[in-house]
């Protein structure tokens, strides 16, 4: 099994075995996980472009990631893909079906794909996912793609987390009403109209273009067909352009800062939860008990600081 040091060395050498093992460790969340996290967050951070892929169910997100990944792999890049699928609220189980669209690219030493069940935490972006991104960066991946569950409130999170957010649409799905709803339209950096091979796709594309003109900063609209591998280069170039622009304007630093902050808060929450639960007694009025506890914590912090 080896020590944390072996694991770190394996990760740095880019070993997929060590990477999968490291993710498994943070998922299990035992004492080893703490050691590993304090090590990987203790070193100077090295960032890889993190590209969030979102959009309606079935729009072709995974297929698009597949053709884009293939394009990058052909150019000698190392590509990591993390894909989140919803958990059934009834059984707690899930079918993680994104991988199937990239399976033909394996076996492959430069492609790492991992499926995650969204267990309801953080609207899809659980700390484990963010920590996995860090592991992939550590292992020297040139690009990291993060596919998240359909459209909903949760996707708003992805914009404070990913460097570039790509919204994948497909003909028919995106009628005007859906365009106007949902903050994601305003938060996406790139619109992709996929499935352009479908009949009447041009009408949907025109509708999207008309909608985009109403936005303050209309994002580029890239028509593609993941099925026919058409205009994959257009998607890659649009991502690169946005990334470069954000890097030069300092926006990227802010995104990464917010990533750290979200993580920090989620860690504190997790670590405090147990302590808090221990403090509660069933005969207390819950709201008052909560306010009292926070007061106590603040007092402790003040005292600790003044010493």
């Amino acid at each position, binding site marked *: 099994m080896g020590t944390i040091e072996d694991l770190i060395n394996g990760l740095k050498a880019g070993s*997929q075995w060590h990477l999968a093992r490291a993710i*498994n460790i943070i998922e299990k969340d035992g004492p080893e996980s703490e050691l590993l996290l304090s090590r990987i967050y203790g070193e100077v951070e090295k960032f890889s472009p993190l590209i969030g892929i979102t959009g309606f169910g079935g729009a072709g997100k995974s297929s698009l990631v597949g053709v884009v990944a293939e394009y990058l792999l052909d150019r000698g890049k190392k590509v990591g893909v993390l894909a989140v699928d919803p958990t059934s609220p009834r059984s*707690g*189980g899930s079918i993680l079906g994104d*991988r199937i669209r990239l399976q033909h690219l394996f076996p492959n030493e430069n492609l*790492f794909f991992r499926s995650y069940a969204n267990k309801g935490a953080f609207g899809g972006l659980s700390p484990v996912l963010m920590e996995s991104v860090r592991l992939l960066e550590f292992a020297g991946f040139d690009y990291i793609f993060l596919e998240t569950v359909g459209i909903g409130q949760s996707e708003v999170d992805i914009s404070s987390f990913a460097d570039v957010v790509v919204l994948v649409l497909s003909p028919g799905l995106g009628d005007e009403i859906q365009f106007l709803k949902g903050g994601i339209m305003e938060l996406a950096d790139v619109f992709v109209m996929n499935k352009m091979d479908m009949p009447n796709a041009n009408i949907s594309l025109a509708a999207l273009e008309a909608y985009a003109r109403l936005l303050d900063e209309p994002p580029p609209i890239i028509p593609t067909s993941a099925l026919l591998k058409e205009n994959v280069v257009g998607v890659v170039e649009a991502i690169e352009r946005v990334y470069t622009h954000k890097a030069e304007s300092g926006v990227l630093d802010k995104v990464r800062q917010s990533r750290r902050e979200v993580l920090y808060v989620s860690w504190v929450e997790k670590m405090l939860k147990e302590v808090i639960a221990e403090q509660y007694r069933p005969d207390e009025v819950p709201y008052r008990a909560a306010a009292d506890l926070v007061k106590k914590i603040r007092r402790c912090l003040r005292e600790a600081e003044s010493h």
Partner: protein
Amino acid sequence: MSLKVIVAKPGLDGHDRQAKIIARTLKDHGYDVVYTGIRQTPSQIAQTALQESADVVILNCLSGAHMELFPETARRVRELGLAPLIIGTGVIPDDDAEELVKMGIDIVFGPGTSPLRVIEAIKTWEQSRI
């Protein structure tokens, strides 16, 4: 954390109904299931098991090539230093089943097996593991 199960179809047959039923039943019983799709090679399945940290790998083959493909897949999975429970399913005669167990498949289920029996087997293994 739910157990992670890979359902994979090695070989050339394109009939995925049975594999999908197994996958869905597992999901309904609280498992996280990664379905690889059809026409998988042993090395594709092995790399999937590695990348996903699979606890269980279920192979389903209806083409009759199970005697070559199942042991080859099991060998590659273990060669990578992984130790998932490996289950073989499909159109497998009893004689073959016995042979496959000798060749490294942990459990083999023949034609007409209910997916519920697969789940029972996983549960039994889970308990013995601790």
